[in-house]
């Protein structure tokens, strides 16, 4: 038992071993093992056998986490991987099922070009070697939502191999120190999704919905190069952003798995090698089906699909029908800007802090929102960044809304920031206007400013008078000031602002007060 491997000095934390390797690993940070060829986990996280063998009691051991992931991302495609059925979320049950999806005898798979392109693009974006020849295999298990009794996948020769995914974690007190990390990609394979089983415990029935059966998935296998849940989560988030940028997947996924395993182990439980799926409603993962060693998937080459051949510009056969061939080089040219580059551009173009560029990209739609505000405002990028990341995002988070659900449009925020920039309103007033915009959509910032009389006092004479009057009313404060307490002026400024209903610029007030005092 290679127990020493488990220990490393991180007294505050304990992680379970999470590793998709089933064999023992020989030292942290040097992932030598590869998954045994036959055994497949669909799960995002599995553990080392060592973890269960230890039977730790709470607080007794320290654990090193070794995280490898198999990520299943649904390919954005109008139709399924091997049939012409449409792909729609939340369609009526069993309304998107072709004869092939229902495994009617005699039906044959026909590969969807779009799914192949998505896999190639993803492979290219993840620095993979694209296999010009890849193969499909059948993976057998009996399950009610798997109509054919097997899933078509790419076990032996997947479409892309040996890539890498760069991601960044933030450390330090303010979490503003960037550490760049890389996780190796073992392979990317195309495979079919299964249907859904809906268990009706009351009537002890299981209902099957085959709408999802046969939808194309990209399985991205990350080598166990990550050492904690946070790293894994960050890597997955980065992958998600890449897939979304490519448009190859909506990439909606979550990972609650590591925490569950930690708790399980700390409670002295055993972790079985099982596939767990994430249940959004419960907010936890739930066991899918028994994946313990006894399961033998009896892989066999899929005889109804010839090898998938891809070409590059050099190997493209002359006179080939463009509809029938896929040119890797052509897809490479079509690759959009990847998140890493987008972030670098933000830092360069706007002088933004790196962590701000991450936040902008991490919220769906936030970058676009920011860019749209930038288009319409004269305000400084720094101010816009601050408003978008602090005020705007703060409001969204507080109300648990997505950017797309925001009641404040980019134009409205841009106009508001213009008012601020022109010193028509104060920062404090701007916050009020923003709150008002959020509450009562439809009104423009200018309307709100005028209705609520929030514009800065432009009448200098009136302001002078207010300053004079305030000083007269508070001789004690003036005295303090004259005695050499410079902070006393703040009290006066505050009093004047209060008298103006916060409509005066404090710097202007300060100037006036100082002038009057010295006169």
């Amino acid at each position, binding site marked *: 038992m290679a127990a020493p491997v488990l220990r490393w000095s991180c007294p505050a934390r304990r992680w379970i071993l999470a590793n998709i390797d089933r064999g023992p690993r020989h030292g942290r940070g040097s992932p030598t093992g590869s998954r045994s060829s036959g055994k497949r986990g669909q799960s995002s996280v599995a553990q080392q056998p060592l973890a269960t063998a230890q039977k730790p009691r709470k607080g007794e051991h320290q654990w090193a986490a070794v995280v490898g992931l198999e990520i299943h991302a649904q390919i954005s495609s109008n139709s399924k991987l091997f049939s012409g059925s449409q792909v729609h979320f939340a369609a009526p049950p069993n309304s998107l099922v072709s004869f092939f999806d229902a495994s009617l005898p005699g039906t044959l798979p026909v590969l969807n070009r779009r799914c192949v392109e998505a896999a190639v693009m993803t492979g290219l974006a993840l620095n993979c070697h694209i296999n010009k020849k890849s193969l499909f295999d059948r993976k057998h298990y*009996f399950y009610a939502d798997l109509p054919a009794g097997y899933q078509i996948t790419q076990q032996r020769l997947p479409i892309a191999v040996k890539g890498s995914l760069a991601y960044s974690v933030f450390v330090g007190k303010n979490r503003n120190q960037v550490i760049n990390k890389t996780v190796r990609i073992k392979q990317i394979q195309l495979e079919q999704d299964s249907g859904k089983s809906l268990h009706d415990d009351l009537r002890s029935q*299981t209902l099957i919905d085959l709408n999802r059966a046969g939808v194309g998935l990209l399985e991205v296998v990350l080598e166990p190069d990550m050492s904690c849940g946070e790293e894994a989560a960050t890597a997955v988030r980065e992958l998600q952003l890449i897939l979304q940028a490519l448009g190859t997947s909506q990439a909606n996924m979550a990972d609650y798995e590591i925490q569950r395993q930690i708790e399980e182990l700390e409670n002295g439980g055993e972790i079985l090698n099982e596939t767990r799926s994430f249940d959004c409603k419960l907010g936890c993962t739930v066991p899918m089906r028994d994946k313990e060693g006894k399961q033998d998937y*009896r892989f066999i080459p899929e005889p109804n699909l010839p090898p998938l051949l891809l070409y590059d510009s050099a190997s493209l056969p002359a006179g080939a029908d463009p509809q029938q061939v896929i040119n890797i080089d052509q897809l490479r040219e079509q690759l959009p800007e990847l998140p890493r580059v987008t972030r670098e551009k933000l830092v360069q173009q706007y002088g933004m802090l790196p962590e701000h560029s991450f936040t902008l990209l991490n919220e769906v739609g936030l970058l676009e929102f920011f860019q749209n505000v930038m288009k319409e405002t004269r305000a400084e990028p720094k101010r816009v960044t601050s408003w978008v990341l602090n005020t705007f995002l703060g409001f969204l988070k507080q109300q648990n809304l997505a950017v797309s659900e925001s009641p404040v449009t980019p134009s409205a925020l841009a106009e508001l920031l213009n008012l601020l920039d022109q010193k028509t309103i104060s920062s404090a007033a701007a916050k009020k206007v923003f709150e008002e915009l959020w509450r009562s959509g439809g009104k423009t910032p200018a309307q709100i400013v005028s209705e609520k009389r929030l514009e800065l006092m432009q009448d200098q004479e009136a302001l002078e008078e207010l300053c004079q009057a305030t000083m007269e009313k508070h001789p004690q404060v003036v005295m303090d000031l004259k005695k050499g307490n410079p902070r006393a002026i703040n009290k006066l400024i505050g009093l004047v602002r209060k008298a103006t209903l916060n409509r005066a610029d404090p710097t202007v007030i300060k100037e006036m007060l100082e002038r009057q005092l010295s006169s």
Partner: protein
Amino acid sequence: MLGRTLREVSVALKQGQITPTELCQECLSLIKKTKFLNAYITVSEEVALKQAEESEERYKKGHSLGELDGIPVAVKDNFSTTGIKTTCASNMLKGYVPPYNATVVQKLLDQGALLMGKTNLDEFAMGSGSTDGVFGPVKNPWSYSKQYREKKKQKPHGENEDTNWLITGGSSGGSAAAVSAFTCFAALGSDTGGSTRNPAALCGVVGLKPTYGLVSRHGLIPLVNSMDVPGILTRCVDDAATVLGVLAGHDCKDSTTVQDPVKSFILPSLTDVSKLCIGIPKEYLVPELSSEVQSLWSKAAKLFESEGAKVIEVSLPHTSYSIVCYHVLCTSEVASNMARFDGLEYGHRCDINVSTEAMYAATRREGFNDVVRGRILSGNFFLLKENYENYFIKAQKVRRLIANDFVNVFNSGVDVLLTPTTLSEAVPYVEFIKEDNRTRSAQGDIFTQAVNMAGLPAVSVPMALSNQGLPIGLQFIGRAFCDQQLLTVAKWFEKQVQFPIIQLQEIMGDCSSVFENDLASVSLKQ
């Protein structure tokens, strides 16, 4: 009229000597008369008559769709047919009505063919006798032929005729019997290890297994996907070529069909065979080969030789491994293909509902016969992780060697190989069932299954009657995608041997009039 070939009757239809409806009704009546053969599982009388009516309209307007318009055909019951039960002769699919047509069925219908019904087979096409289906065995029409009966009578101890009927061979025995007994002019079979050629030889008809990838498998309920090919059974080689011309070509629903455009399958009448090189594989001379078949085989070789063809002995050294290799590959794919029959989406479902697993087990236990279950069991054994390398991978490698044997022979200049199709003529059912299905299949496929491993085209052509008055067929094997060349040679051979027409007058009673049209009365203008 029914005794004619497809092309002859097609001419008769065009010339108005008979209408599609009349032709259809004659076939239906004959199907009823020969019901005891058990050739058909389902007779689609209404469908056929409606199609005949439509065909008749087209002929009236002079818009016939082609040579198949109005021609009665039958389809093996492992091809999907819209609205018509497709059972695979299994309890598992009893009552299953597919919502779509197999591509080959659709192509026949698009040409105006009349679908008479679905023919009998071994359960899921697993067998070589057409004896192991849930609807019972198919009887060989030659059991009731004048030729066979006369020979029988000469024997001192007249056996009971009712129990002494002969098997058709299989697994497409229903299709072979249907064509042989004149109930249709062409029938679809399937051929995985010889399932079309074997019954064709035993029933005295032409059985064509086209090159793998030439004809779509979409809608053919699979046995072994990598070897299955829709087969064609007809009464003459030209008819097989005609049907192949309709069926061949790329199908976007079957990714294993070739994309190259298909050339014509019209066969020239060969007059000179002197440029041909015929290969005789020496490994096919096995001890089990009956002396009669062996002597006909030699006779055929001599026939080619005497007409100037080069006839040489060739070697296919890996032939003897074919049977065991096929066993591993076939059962492995069967195990996989049969996984879908779980009682959930279609077909048989048992009454047990304590758990999904229990339901699966009982459904499959009730749905499949012993042969199918046995193959599923062995296949799953071969695919186990610890066995995969030792069995499946090895068998695949042997398959490659077998395929290369053929490549080498054809590269050496051989145009066509000439072999027996079966070890002997048809045997009585009572004899046949003494052996188990596995042994019988191994024997039945001995000359045919290597061709499926290599994906080559092959055709069985009836040559002569045995001493017992039963048909014996020989097999021609061609180069991949040289189906036309293969059939051209077969056509020449067919013309030389003049295989006799089956004489079924006795059992068909008043139907015998249908055979009286002698072939010469039809002018064949080509």
